[in-house]
C-alpha cells in the first residue's frame, strides 16, 4: 500500500467506513486489541498500588508542565555539561534542517533510525531522503511500514494493521526474499535481522526519539523490546535524539514511577526488554558515539500549552493504552484518524496540531465511553477534552472569518430549535406530541423499522426505533394522579 503524508483526518467517517468493510483489517485489529487489553489487565492486576502509581504519574507530568520552561533550560545545561548539544526547533522544518545540517557537516551518508513518533510527526525520513541520505527504519514494525511505503497505524505497534501473510508479501516484493512466504514469524524476524544488521554496522548516524528526558541529569530514556534503539544510539558515530518538549520529567528518580506505568500500560510488561539511559557522549576509554545531539521539538506544543482546557494532553507518554481500550479505534483502525497520532489521544491532539479546520470530525470520533481515561497512566481527561474540542468546532464554525467549516445546516437548526423549545415547556410538549404522532404513524408492533428522515434514517438502517408513547409519562401522571403535583410545582 502507499500512503501520502497529507492528513486525511477531515474524512474520518469515510475512512472508518472503508476500514469496517475491510475484513482482513478487522481481523488484525480485533486480535491485536484483545491481546493488548488482556496483557495490560494482568500486568495492572499485579500491582495493587496501580491507582497510586497513576496518581504519581499524573503529578510528575503535571509538575513537569508547570515548570516546563525552567526544566528545559536545566535539561540543556546538563546535556551540554556531559558533552552533548541541544538544538531548539520551533517547527518540523527547523527540526529537519537541524538534522540535515548535522549530517552534512559530518559527511554522513547512511542513517539508521529507531522508532519515534516525533520524527513521524515531522516527516523526517522524507526530508532526509530528499536531501540525499539513505535512511533505514530499524524497529521491525517501522521497517515493514517503510518497505511498504505505508504509515504507522498505532503509536507503539506501527504495523498492527497488517497480518503476517501481508508482511511475507512485502518482504518478498521489496527485499526479493523468495522464501518469505511460509517463513512464519521467526523466519520473517530472521530476514529482518539479517537485512538490518548490515545497516547498523555501516551507518554513520543513528536517530532516535525519547520516551522521557530527565531535567536534572540531562539523560534521555528509550524503552524498546528489539534492541534496535540501543544499537542506533551506540553503534554509529553520531546519535541524534528528536525529543518533544513535553517529554521532560523533573528528576531522574521520577523514572522509577514513569517506567513502571509505561511498560504495563503499553504492552503489559513490567519493564520492556531494554531500557536505554543515555547521558552525554562516551567518556575517555568508553565506547559509544562521539557526538550526542538533542533536537528539542516544539511544533505546536507551546500552542497546546496555552489552552487552559487542553494542555493536560501534553502529559501523554504515548503508551497507546487508550487506543487498545477504545471500541472506536478497534473498528476504525489507526489510518482512519488520518495523521500520525491515532485513537482517543489522536482525536484530542491531532486537531490541535493540524488546526481544528483540518480535523473537525475527530472530536466526534468517540462514543464518550471513557474507557480511554480509565486506562490512561497519567489520567488525561480525554472524553472531557473531546467535548471541549466539539464546542470549539461549533464555535469556530460560526465565526465570520470562515476559516472553519460550517456545521451541517440541519444540525444547527435542530439544536437551535432544541434550545428554544427546551425552556418553553408548553411549546416543548406541543412539538414533541407532533413528533411522536408522526413517528407512531410509521410504526408497527411498537417498532419503527425504517425512516427516511435525516439522521433517523441512519438509526433505522441497522436497528429498529422503538415507537414513542401515545401519551408521555408526565401526561399520564397528571391524568392518573390529578393535577395536584402540577399545581404544587407551578
Amino acid at each position: 500500500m502507499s500512503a501520502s503524508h497529507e492528513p486525511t483526518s477531515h474524512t474520518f467517517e469515510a475512512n472508518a467506513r472503508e476500514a469496517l468493510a475491510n475484513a482482513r483489517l478487522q481481523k488484525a485489529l480485533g486480535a491485536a486489541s484483545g491481546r493488548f487489553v488482556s496483557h495490560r489487565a494482568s500486568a495492572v492486576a499485579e500491582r495493587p498500588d496501580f491507582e497510586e502509581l497513576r496518581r504519581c504519574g499524573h503529578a510528575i507530568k503535571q509538575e513537569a508542565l508547570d515548570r516546563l520552561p525552567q526544566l528545559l533550560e536545566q535539561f540543556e545545561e546538563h546535556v551540554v555539561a556531559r558533552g552533548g548539544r541541544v538544538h531548539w526547533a520551533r517547527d518540523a522544518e527547523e527540526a529537519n534542517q537541524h538534522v540535515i545540517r548535522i549530517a552534512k557537516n559530518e559527511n554522513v551518508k547512511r542513517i539508521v533510525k529507531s522508532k519515534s513518533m516525533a520524527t513521524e510527526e515531522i516527516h523526517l525520513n522524507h526530508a532526509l531522503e530528499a536531501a540525499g541520505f539513505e535512511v533505514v527504519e530499524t524497529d521491525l514494525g517501522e521497517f515493514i511500514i517503510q518497505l511498504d511505503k505505508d504509515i504507522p497505524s498505532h503509536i507503539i505497534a506501527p504495523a498492527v494493521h497488517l497480518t503476517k501473510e501481508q508482511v511475507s508479501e512485502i518482504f518478498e516484493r521489496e527485499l526479493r526474499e523468495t522464501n518469505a512466504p511460509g517463513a512464519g514469524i521467526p523466519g520473517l524476524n530472521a530476514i529482518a535481522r539479517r537485512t538490518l544488521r548490515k545497516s547498523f554496522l555501516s551507518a554513520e548516524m543513528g536517530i532516535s526519539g525519547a520516551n522521557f528526558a530527565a531535567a536534572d541529569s540531562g539523560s534521555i530514556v528509550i524503552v524498546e523490546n528489539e534492541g534496535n534503539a540501543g544499537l542506533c544510539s551506540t553503534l554509529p558515530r553520531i546519535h541524534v535524539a528528536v525529543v518533544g518538549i513535553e517529554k521532560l520529567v523533573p528528576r531522574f528518580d521520577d523514572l522509577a514511577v514513569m517506567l513502571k506505568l509505561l511498560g504495563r500500560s503499553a504492552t503489559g510488561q513490567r519493564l520492556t526488554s531494554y531500557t536505554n539511559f543515555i547521558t552525554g557522549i562516551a567518556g575517555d576509554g568508553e565506547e559509544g558515539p562521539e557526538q550526542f545531539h538533542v533536537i528539542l521539538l516544539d511544533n505546536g506544543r507551546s500552542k497546546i500549552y496555552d489552552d487552559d482546557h487542553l494542555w493536560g494532553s501534553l502529559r501523554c507518554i504515548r503508551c497507546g493504552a487508550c487506543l487498545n481500550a477504545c471500541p472506536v479505534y478497534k473498528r476504525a483502525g489507526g489510518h482512519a484518524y488520518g495523521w500520525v497520532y491515532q485513537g482517543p489521544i489522536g482525536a484530542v491532539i491531532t486537531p490541535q496540531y493540524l488546526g481544528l479546520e483540518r480535523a473537525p470530525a475527530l472530536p466526534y470520533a468517540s462514543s464518550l465511553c471513557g474507557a480511554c481515561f480509565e486506562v490512561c497512566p497519567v489520567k488525561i481527561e480525554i472524553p472531557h477534552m473531546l467535548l471541549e474540542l466539539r464546542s470549539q468546532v461549533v464555535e469556530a464554525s460560526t465565526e465570520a472569518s470562515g476559516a472553519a467549516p460550517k456545521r451541517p445546516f440541519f444540525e444547527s437548526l435542530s439544536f437551535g430549535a432544541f434550545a428554544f423549545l427546551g425552556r418553553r415547556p408548553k411549546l416543548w410538549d406541543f412539538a414533541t406530541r407532533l413528533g411522536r404522532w408522526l413517528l407512531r404513524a410509521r410504526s408497527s408492533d411498537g417498532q419503527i423499522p425504517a425512516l427516511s428522515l435525516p439522521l433517523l434514517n441512519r438509526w433505522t438502517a441497522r436497528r429498529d426505533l422503538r415507537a414513542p408513547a401515545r401519551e408521555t409519562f408526565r401526561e399520564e401522571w397528571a391524568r392518573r394522579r390529578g393535577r395536584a403535583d402540577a399545581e404544587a410545582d407551578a
Partner: protein
Amino acid sequence: MPRKVSLFVTCLADQVMTQAAWAAVELLEKLGCQVEVPMGQTCCGQPAFNSGYRNEAREVARHWLETFKHAQYIVSPSGSCTSMVKVFYKDLFEPGSPEAREIARLAARTYELTQFIVWELGRTDVGARYRGKVAYHASCHLLRELGERHAPRGLLERVQGAELVSIKDSETVCCGFGGTFSVKMADLSAAMLDEKLAALEASGADCVVACDAGCLLHIGGGLTRRGSRVRAFHIAELLTGRVPAPDAHV
C-alpha cells in the same frame, strides 16, 4: 418524615420508555418516598452539549435548574442524564456565578435511581422476583462519570429467582450508543452494537437490563431487528415485576 423525591424523568423515558418512569415511581413509593413530578421539565440539554452546542445546552440547563430548584432529592432513571447534571453542568457556567452555585447545591441532591436506593435509602432487597437469566449492561456514564459499579448489581443480586449471568469481556464495553454518535457515526456505532448483541446472545441471558434509556433503545432496537429472543429492559422494570418471565413471552 418520608423523603420527598422530585422525579427527573428524562426526555427519553418521558416520551418513549414511559414504563421505566412508572417503574421508578413504584419503586420509590414502595421504599417509602413521596414522589412528585415537576411538570415543566423538558430535557437536561445533553444532546446539545455532547454535540458541541454549549450556548444551546446552557439555555436548557438554566431551565432545568429553575424546574428543580425546590427539590429535596432529585432522582433520575438515567446514569447519563444524572452525570450531565452532576459532572458536566459546571462546565457550562463561570465558576462563582449564581448558576454555578445553584448547580453545586442541586447536583449534591441529584441521584441516579439505583444509587439513590442503595446509597441513600440503604436498600438492596426491594422484594423483587424474576424467574430467568438476567444480564446487566453497565452503561458508560453511570460506570465511569459517576463511578458506580456496585449499586445496580447489588439490587440485581437480591432479585429472588433471578440468575445473574455475565456478558463475557463485554460487561463494561460501550454498546456504541454514545448519544448523537449513534447517528453521526452510524456505521461505527452499529459495528459496536453488533459485538454487544453477539456477546449478549452468547451469555444465555433472556433479558438485559441497564440504567439508561438511550443504551436500552439502541440495544433493544438491535435485538428486535435481528429477531433475538433476548429482551432489553430498564432495571426498574425488572425490580417492579414488569418483565414477563421468559416462558410467558412469545
